[in-house]
């Protein structure tokens, strides 16, 4: 009896919760725009900027679904169940290249409901590379740090300095912090290790997760210690810490395809949406096609976030206020008015 009561109670609670959800959802006839909410800040801010404009200006219900790169993109391609994302604001394609190619091909195949379409660039020229704190090379008189590797300019100088970046778990070699397991850059870095001939002097450390990589770099920086590893921009970490990118031979497609002994190509970050979305929400697609920012804007709102301990929502609001001239050009005038009214 007691159990039955409890069951009824929880059923009631569930009903009430469902009621609340439907009660507050605006315009239930329009399809829900679900954003793939990746773990890094810039993607989350772009999601919130776009979501605000889509919700307030175009009147679609919006939602975010959190997860990792591969998982969210797989869900976006398959679009199974009500929770799957249908918009990805930052593709970073080469970190899931195989899956991306597959999803794009499926998007063009009329015999399947799976796949996505590419709506063009969100921002161009994102940077990836190998970094050390600037004080390692140039010192920092303010903090009283002497340069420990004054001649460290390019990746080819690394063998000389392995002792500086000593790996505590294998003291005979230096430690290189590679990228998050599963991202293609982990494999790229491995190939570069061979191509640059630093395999004998350095171990590749797999940091296990994004927060771990960022925390290890930031902690070393705060304590004025040497650190060597992979990172990318736009990110708040590179906006906040003064890091120096090690020189590599200029990017060359031929070298890249074989040994990878050259710099990462400048990646453009595109927006992709599930292939069925254009039919369901043509005005959203028109807006997202116009959506384009620059690397500089990205670095600025990320730095704003870090400096003011702002949330991703607050950073999005800051962007909408600061770059009004930019985003009002992405939507029709009446929509822009609605968004502006909602901002107040």
């Amino acid at each position, binding site marked *: 009896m007691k159990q039955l009561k409890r069951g009824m109670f929880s059923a009631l609670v569930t009903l009430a919760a469902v009621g609340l959800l439907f009660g507050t959802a605006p315009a239930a006839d329009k399809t829900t725009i679900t954003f793939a909410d990746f773990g890094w800040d810039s993607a989350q801010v772009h999601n919130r900027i776009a979501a605000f404009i889509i919700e307030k200006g175009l009147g679609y219900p919006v939602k975010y679904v959190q997860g990792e790169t591969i998982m969210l993109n797989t869900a976006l391609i398959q679009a199974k169940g009500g929770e799957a994302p249908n918009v990805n604001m930052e593709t970073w394609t080469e970190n899931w290249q195989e899956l991306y190619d597959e999803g794009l091909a499926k998007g063009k195949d009329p015999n399947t409901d799976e796949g996505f379409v590419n709506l063009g660039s969100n921002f161009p020229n994102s940077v990836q590379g190998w970094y050390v704190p600037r004080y390692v090379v140039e010192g920092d008189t303010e903090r009283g740090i002497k340069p420990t590797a004054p001649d460290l300019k390019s990746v080819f100088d690394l063998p000389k300095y392995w002792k500086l970046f000593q790996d505590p*778990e294998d003291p005979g070699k230096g430690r290189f912090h590679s990228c998050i397991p599963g991202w293609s850059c982990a494999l790229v870095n491995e190939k570069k290790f061979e191509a640059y001939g630093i395999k004998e002097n350095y171990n590749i*450390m797999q940091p296990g997760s994004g927060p771990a990589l960022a925390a290890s770099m930031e902690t070393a920086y705060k304590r004025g210690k040497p650190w060597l590893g992979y990172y990318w921009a736009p990110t708040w970490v590179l906006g906040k810490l003064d890091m120096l990118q090690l020189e590599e031979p200029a990017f060359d497609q031929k070298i890249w395809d074989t040994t990878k002994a050259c710099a990462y190509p400048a990646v453009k970050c595109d927006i992709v949406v599930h292939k069925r979305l254009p039919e369901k929400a043509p005005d959203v697609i028109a807006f997202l096609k116009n959506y384009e920012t620059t690397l500089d804007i990205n670095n600025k709102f990320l730095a704003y976030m870090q400096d003011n301990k702002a949330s991703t929502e607050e950073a999005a609001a800051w962007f909408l206020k600061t770059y009004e001239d930019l985003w009002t050009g992405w939507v029709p005038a009446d929509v822009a008015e609605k968004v502006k009214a909602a901002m107040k």
Partner: protein
Amino acid sequence: MEFPKSIDIPLDIWVDGIMDWVLSTFGGFFDMLGTGILYFLMYTEKFFLWLPWPILVLGVGILAWRVMGSWLAGLGMAGMLFFVGALGLWELGMMTLALVVASVIVSLAIGIPLGIAMASSDPFQAIIKPILDGMQTMPSFVYLIPALMLFGLGKVPALFATIIYAVPPVIRLTNVGIREVSANVIEAAHAFGSSYWQILFKVQLPLARPTILVGINQTTMMALAMVVIASMIGAKGLGLEVLLAINRIEVGRGFEAGLCIVFMAIIIDRITFSMASHTKDNTDR
């Protein structure tokens, strides 16, 4: 009804401040502590990597047969361990085992004395209990990152985080085990003129042994459960293999590594659990 915004405890800012202060003031101390722990860890790992596999497989088989009292069980346990090697995951498995064993050793060194102290003082128990609750329910990523900030990326913060998660059961069960020792027995020991330490080592601990062994069993299992999470801060082993497989959606590869963790858990659980119930039989007799 919305909670009034004027009531706002800036706990996050305090914690950040404390963390910064600890880092800048005791950074050197944690470096030294970290190096010490790392030596201990590296030697444990070297030992397990050096141990020839037939000896370990045979040893586990014989041990399981002796404590579980069935040659079939021994064969099963040895078989499971053999399977780990057959999947090509022996080395990673040994790395994981080394981390678990090292974590358990440190956990016991901290946990059993704390449990004894808890049993002998009610106020101390009142203080420690909510802390143990916190250690077991606080989402592990919350303390993984601070551990990483103190000890750097790799095995040491992984050990640290594993201990936080795994030490509560052995503390709790040592406490309960000692408290459950009948008052009559202790009174009798007093009557014979035993000192506090004599009662502790010759009466309470031996009688509490089965309960403490269950605690050790629980601690070991929880340490093993922490393996995948610890890999998120760079600890090599089966956990990292699972993480890699998940991130690349290689379902089969993840299943292999996951299965190895399950097998190791079963082996460790059955053997330590049998040891615990074995001694129970003896004391009852």
